[in-house]
């Protein structure tokens, strides 16, 4: 069993809880459906977004240079990081040079990917994740399980216990409103005490040198606009060519992610605030490698909405932690193997290839085809699980020969009904753990066809 399959099996042991998780995430899919169906032009928007991103990827270096020029003109400092390590060093240096020991952070999948938090914390910088879901998992010392709803796997009673332990809320308090109020007070102190704020970037605008950060909680703005120092981290693929392109993406993003028409805040940052500093860190970390791959390039169009996770029947029944990667679900299973193919070889197989993700993706990434392409890539490099390789070889061998195939089928139909049930449904029969085998008919279709004297 792959690591994902093992963790998924454990996840499902708690039947009521796994059913609750499935239903909770499905509900977000339903909210997306309602919001999307309110726009008759939804499919055209998806198409437009996909084409804008595809174009941007075809001129990425040019647009990044244009972005940098404009950002610098506005007074920002722009840094470039080849990989996660360099990103972490750059961010640390910016903070350390200014004596920053208290940092607040809003949601950035990129910084999760680079494992920035432990890097900074081991060097004496307090890092407080300010998105409520992220703060919850940070206090619980867990990774987020969803890119938009980091604590979707947690029940309110558990959050209540956590807050009682860490924030001093009354024992047994589980009301979301009151727990949020407690977090508000706690994080407000952190915002006020912070010496720097770090945000992600939802979209970077080449034409203007600015970028957009979308939140519902207002935490990015409190973090970026209270302290004098704002650090914004972005992957190279976050570029859009023109400000007006944002209209397409902002109409798609929140509807796809949570079913809202738009997030509470879509903040457009152009240059530092008066008297402040703005540092933008542009990160590659394997994205240029993906760009060069025809089959996988489209995954760089991702706007991190999470819709693919919400619709994925496998994600909903296994939870984000079962993937063992920063970004889980369908897009995560496409991105992870490009980072470490050997470690994440199981992920493209953690899918029934149903294709639902492809049809909800606002930028029309053909996710399930990319999962299939990864399977072939892994097999080519000898990284597919051994039993799969052997099974495919054996199966291919038998099926190439009509005679061998007919004999194999005949043997199955003759022998299986004769064997004792205990043998048929032994531990070796993975199918038989939860299901009955098909009833073996006496004759195959082709035998029946022949008996009828048909052509």
């Amino acid at each position: 069993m792959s690591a994902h399959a093992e963790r998924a099996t454990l996840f499902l042991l708690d039947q009521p809880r796994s059913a609750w998780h499935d239903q909770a995430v499905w509900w977000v899919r339903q909210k997306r459906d309602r919001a999307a169906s309110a726009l008759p032009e939804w499919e055209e928007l998806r198409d437009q977004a996909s084409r804008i991103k595809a174009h941007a990827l075809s001129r990425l270096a040019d647009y990044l240079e244009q972005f940098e020029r404009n950002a610098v003109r506005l007074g920002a400092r722009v840094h470039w990081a080849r990989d996660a390590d360099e990103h972490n060093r750059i961010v640390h240096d910016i903070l350390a040079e200014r004596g920053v020991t208290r940092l607040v952070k809003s949601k950035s999948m990129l910084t999760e990917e680079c494992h920035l938090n432990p890097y900074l914390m081991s060097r004496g910088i307090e890092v407080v994740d300010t998105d409520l879901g992220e703060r919850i998992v940070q206090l619980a010392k867990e990774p987020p399980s969803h890119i938009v709803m980091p604590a979707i796997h947690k029940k309110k009673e558990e959050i209540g216990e956590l807050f009682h332990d860490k924030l001093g809320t009354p024992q047994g308090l589980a009301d979301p409103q009151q727990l949020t109020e407690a977090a508000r007070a706690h994080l407000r102190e952190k915002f006020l005490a912070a010496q720097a704020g770090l945000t992600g970037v939802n979209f970077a605008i080449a034409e203007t040198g600015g970028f957009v950060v979308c939140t519902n909680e207002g935490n990015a703005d409190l973090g970026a606009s209270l302290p004098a120092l704002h650090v914004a981290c972005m992957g190279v693929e976050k570029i859009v060519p023109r400000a007006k392109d944002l209209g397409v993406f902002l109409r798609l993003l929140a509807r796809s992610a949570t079913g809202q028409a738009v997030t509470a805040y879509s903040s457009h940052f152009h240059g530092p605030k008066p008297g402040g500093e703005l540092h933008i860190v542009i990160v590659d970390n394997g994205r240029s490698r993906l760009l060069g791959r025809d089959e996988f390039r489209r995954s760089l169009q991702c706007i991190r909405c999470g819709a693919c996770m919400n619709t994925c029947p496998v994600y909903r029944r296994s939870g984000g932690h079962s993937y063992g990667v920063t970004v889980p679900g369908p897009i995560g299973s496409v991105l992870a193997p490009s980072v470490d193919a050997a470690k994440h070889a199981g992920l493209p197989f953690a899918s029934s290839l149903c294709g639902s993700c492809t049809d909800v993706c606002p930028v029309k990434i053909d996710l399930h085809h990319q999962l299939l392409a990864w399977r072939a890539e892994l097999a080519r490099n000898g990284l597919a699980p051994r039993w799969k390789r052997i099974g495919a070889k054996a199966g291919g061998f038998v099926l190439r020969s009509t005679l061998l195939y007919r004999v194999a089928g005949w043997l199955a139909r003759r022998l299986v009904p004769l064997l004792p049930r205990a043998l048929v449904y032994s531990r070796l029969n993975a199918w038989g753990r939860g299901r009955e085998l098909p009833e073996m008919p006496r004759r195959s279709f082709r035998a029946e066809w022949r008996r009828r004297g048909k052509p």
Partner: protein
Amino acid sequence: MGSREEILARLRAARPAPRELPEARRFGNPAADLRARFAQAVQDAGGRCVRIGGLDSLPAALEELAPYREAHRVASLVPGVTRANVRLEDVVDPHDLRDVDFAVVPGELGIAENGAVWITDRGMRHRVLPWIAQHVALVVADDRLVNDMHEAYECLDVGTGFGCFVSGPSKTADIEQALVIGAHGPRSATVFLVG
């Protein structure tokens, strides 16, 4: 080779075949009644939309709001707000705005499809004001309503300083998907539609 050059070189080496940038175009469905659509969208976003005839009605309309009446510290960038008692021009450190209970901020434009109001930091001095205040009121002229985001970007020049599309109060659903209004930003957002 520095990181910048290396990254750009790698991106150029990996670059795919050219793909055309599609023409920017309008997609929306014009609402029959922009004001009604806008008001509904503000409500859907957890805010309130109040229509007033003119700016001179604003002080009285604000009095209708309990958070405003009960506010000790009120900051306003819109003139004529009677309870305003924070002189923003005297505030040097944005942290000193921590006790602002209510902020009144002008909006340049409103978007009917999602109840968003475009605000900027022009004249604001401290752009954190609309987030650090416990409650916020946004004031928009009703002839400055557009249908959707495409139209908004056509009307606005977003390329300088700081601006934000604000739709309703701050909110979160991070605890078991239960919607809680008032996360880290304002606990309430009232949009006054003037005209």
